[in-house]
């Protein structure tokens, strides 16, 4: 009996999956009624359910599935056309099956589900006179055997070969043109007459078919290795447990590695490093098992939209982009309901009635776009409609009316802030209350649910053009790369994704300056607004010397966070923070640090907001740093060169070409070395001279140069060697005060100096640019 329970469980799980697929296929079938593929697929799926339910003696389920199957077979045979009504009936049948399955799952019985009315509806469909028009001559015969009396206990499903699973070889060969029908016919005939050889063999031996064609057909004939053979089902709880254990393992590893490093025993250190690597791989593997494409939750939406738009009398086309985007399973679960809500809301309130759309000069059919994509360690999921849009003024009015805002606050708010009012509890702009949405609950629940998983939700809308709801969801809840920093007596954790670079402030060559009281730092000539972490946290404010600036990026803003000390990067396991700390807003979670203490994870975007960066300065900031931003998200690409013993990195986007010149081509023009290059005179600049580096590579026959162009002029920087091109991650960078250098960074485990090309040239010769004009040098 227990075995049977397991079988039933498996049947339920499998059937639920099948039903979801049928749902999708039915909706798709409505779009292309002629698709025999779709009909066959639906037919097979229902057939499987019918067969298994018969075997498990779920009589009512079997009867219902049988009714659906009968109707489908008529569609398949072309006896009856596919119409929206038939689709509705079939969907209702599927719902009936689903209800039965649920009843079986819960009560282990099929009672309490109305099957008869569905069956009656199916019958009515089949008896509908629609069938007489298209296939009149064939009808009598088909009619005679198809609608079998349904109430009769259906025979156990005969092990009839499920069609399409294994097609006859001959048929395939004829179809592909590899064999003549007549040859296949005679081969079959000889088989019937007792020839024991296989069909393919007969054809081959008689020279009626090419070996390649036969083997290809044989391969196609073999049923495709199904997903079921290459995958197993795993209990999600088990995965969750594993995930938690890996989380603990990461913590234990961090503690162990720290301890071992202190002992300095090289053997132990090696073992610890190995353990570290294995742990990381294990962690990655387990994380992967939990990743699922977002399609899993999207797949239910076509049905939702179809039913809803039909009941509202609207036409909605659904477009899905990026459905393969993967998310952690637990996050997917958490996103499912909010997403469904947004979609329903968009169909209900976003997209207008057909008449209104036409009046507004839009196409009668509304478009709902679901979009998912990765963006900087997050997954963005958008629900966009091309409907009526929301009126900012109306939202503001309503918010004032509901007491969510004071009238005098409104003028000071920007559009985004006002739009965000729709997420306030008790806010609803819907003109009428429908049974779908608009009861004033919903958006706040969406917001709460998304924020609970560390995500964010925002909305943007243009009146008359549509609305975009955007969910920003962390890739995974569990583990992030983070930097630990000290501030005051305490240690805090900052997600590394937000960190662009680090600057050490010694108070002499690098220092904090004040613009009418507001602390700023000159970062490569641009002013960077600073936020003191100690002040923000309400701690005792320390000095400006011997501190670090972490250049952070969040919400399109760039700012520097002043902390006492930057310790190291570490993988931390994010633990949700008790809801009582949510209102503080500065912490996105907590973690257990290597020493076993709790560390708070700072919420960088909240810090940015706290930093009182005004909207004005904001924009300037974003504009001025747009290139730095692009560099930050992808990692700045650097050309690594060797100059003497030193490694010097040049931003790749300033590099025009890399060249090798024979030493003999170097000529002298005044005090300067030049080469003729593409019909022009290109001045050479030896980086070793500029940087005061001792270079011993003078003996070679050729020189390596990096051609740099700016403002229509070029210069060739002579280096000893081109080493590599590397992405500059956000590893620790320190500013050094040396002419021509931006600072140093650790790139590929080597200390590398970052060249400020412009300043390097000027440092070598302050008159360089001016002289160049005079000398009419290269006009690249």
């Amino acid at each position, binding site marked *: 009996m227990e075995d049977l329970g397991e079988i039933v469980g498996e049947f339920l799980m499998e059937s639920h999956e099948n039903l979801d697929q049928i749902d999708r296929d039915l909706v798709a079938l409505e779009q292309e009624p002629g698709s025999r593929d779709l009909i066959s697929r639906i037919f097979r799926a229902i057939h499987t359910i019918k067969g298994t339910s018969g075997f498990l003696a779920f009589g009512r389920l079997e009867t219902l599935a049988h009714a659906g199957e009968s109707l489908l077979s008529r569609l398949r045979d072309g006896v009856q056309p596919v119409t929206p009504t038939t689709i509705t009936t079939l969907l209702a049948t599927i719902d009936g099956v689903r209800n039965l399955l649920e009843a079986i799952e819960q009560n282990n019985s099929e009672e309490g589900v109305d099957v008869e009315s569905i069956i009656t509806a199916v019958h009515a469909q089949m008896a509908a006179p629609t069938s007489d028009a298209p296939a009149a001559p064939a009808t009598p015969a088909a009619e005679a055997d198809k609608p079998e009396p349904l109430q009769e206990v259906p025979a156990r499903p005969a092990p009839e070969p499920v069609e399409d699973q294994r097609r006859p070889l001959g048929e395939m060969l004829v179809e592909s043109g590899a064999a003549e029908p007549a040859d296949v016919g005679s081969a079959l005939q000889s088989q019937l007459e007792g020839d024991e050889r296989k069909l393919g063999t007969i054809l081959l031996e008689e020279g009626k078919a090419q070996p390649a064609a036969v083997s290809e057909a044989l391969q196609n004939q073999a049923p495709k290795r199904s997903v079921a053979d290459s995958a197993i089902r795993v209990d999600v709880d088990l995965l969750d447990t594993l995930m938690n254990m890996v989380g603990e393992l990461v913590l234990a590893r961090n503690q162990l590695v720290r301890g071992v490093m202190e002992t300095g025993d090289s053997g132990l250190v090696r073992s610890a490093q190995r353990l570290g690597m294995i742990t990381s791989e294990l962690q990655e593997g387990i994380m992967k098992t939990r990743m699922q494409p977002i399609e899993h939750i999207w797949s239910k939406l076509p049905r939702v939209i179809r039913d809803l738009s039909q009941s509202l009398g609207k036409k909605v086309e659904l477009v899905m982009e990026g459905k393969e985007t993967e998310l952690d399973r637990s996050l997917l679960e958490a996103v499912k309901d909010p997403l469904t809500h947004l979609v329903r809301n968009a169909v209900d309130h976003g997209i207008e009635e057909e008449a209104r759309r036409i009046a507004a000069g839009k196409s009668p059919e509304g478009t709902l776009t679901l979009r998912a994509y990765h963006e900087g360690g997050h997954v963005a999921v958008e629900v966009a409609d091309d409907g009526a849009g929301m009126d900012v003024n109306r939202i503001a009015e309503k918010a004032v009316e509901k007491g969510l805002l004071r009238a005098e606050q409104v003028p000071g708010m920007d559009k985004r802030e006002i739009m965000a009012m729709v997420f306030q509890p008790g806010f609803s702009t819907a003109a009428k209350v429908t049974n779908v949405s608009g009861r004033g609950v919903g958006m706040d629940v969406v917001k709460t649910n998304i924020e609970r998983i560390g995500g964010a939700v925002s909305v943007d809308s243009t009146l008359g053009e549509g609305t975009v709801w955007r969910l920003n969801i962390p890739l995974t809840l569990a583990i992030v790369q983070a930097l630990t920093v000290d501030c005051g007596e*305490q240690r805090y954790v900052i997600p590394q994704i937000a960190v662009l670079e680090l600057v050490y402030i010694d108070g002499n060559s690098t220092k904090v300056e004040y613009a009418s009281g507001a602390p700023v730092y000159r970062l490569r000539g641009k002013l960077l607004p600073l936020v003191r972490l100690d002040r923000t*946290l309400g701690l005792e404010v320390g000095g400006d010397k011997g501190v670090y600036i972490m250049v952070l990026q969040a919400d399109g803003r760039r700012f520097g966070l002043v902390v006492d000390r930057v310790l190291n990067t570490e993988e931390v396991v994010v633990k949700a923070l*008790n809801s*009582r*700390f949510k209102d503080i807003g*500065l912490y996105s979670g907590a973690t257990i640090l290597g020493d076993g203490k*709790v560390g*708070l994870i700072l919420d960088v975007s909240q810090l940015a907001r706290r930093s009182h960066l005004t909207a004005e300065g904001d924009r300037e900031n974003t504009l001025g740093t747009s290139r730095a931003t692009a560099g930050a998200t992808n990692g700045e690409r650097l050309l690594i060169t060797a100059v003497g013993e030193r490694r010097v990195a040049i931003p790749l986007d300033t590099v025009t070409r890399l060249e090798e010149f024979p030493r003999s081509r170097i000529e002298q023009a005044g005090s300067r070395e030049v080469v003729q290059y593409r019909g022009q005179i290109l001045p050479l600049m030896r980086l070793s001279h500029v940087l005061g580096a001792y270079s011993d590579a003078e003996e070679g026959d050729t020189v390596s140069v990096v051609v740099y162009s700016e403002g229509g002029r070029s210069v060739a920087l002579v280096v000893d060697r081109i080493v590599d091109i590397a992405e500059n991650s956000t590893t620790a960078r320190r500013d050094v005060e040396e002419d021509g250098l931006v600072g140093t960074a650790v790139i590929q485990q080597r200390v590398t100096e970052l060249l400020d090309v412009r300043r390097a040239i000027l440092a070598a010769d302050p008159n360089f640019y001016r002289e160049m004009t005079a000398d009419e040098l290269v006009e690249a």
Partner: protein
Amino acid sequence: MASRQFATFEVAEQLFGVEVDTVQEVLSYSEYTPVPLAPPAVGGLFNLRGQVIAAVDLRVQLGLPRQTLAGPKMNVILRGDGEPVSLLVDRIGEVVDLDDDAFEPPPDTLSGHTRELVVGTFKLDGRLMLALDVTQAVDTYRATT
């Protein structure tokens, strides 16, 4: 005669009690991470076998000055609503069986912060035990408003 079990503890010389089944465990812990800008009643966070637990300073809840969090402090860890939460107390007492007839509502003379946290008084041999309202006791926003 119905009786209930209470876990008892002392804060500022006063004996308090919570029903045993609301308590997950009792332990002494010495390293707390303060949470800047949190309500004053939040003593700090600590690591309970990989779980981050918030410790609520019962002294602050009772309108007294904060505990200094140097050195080991006793925690009464309550199961809480969904996630455990800890009460920082001075001393742990014993678990007592109390008959319902030893119970009386809080005396009318009891007022202020303590009154809001207490559901009743139990008369023990020689001293009184105040039964805490667990939900109120861990509500860190209560004392500040």
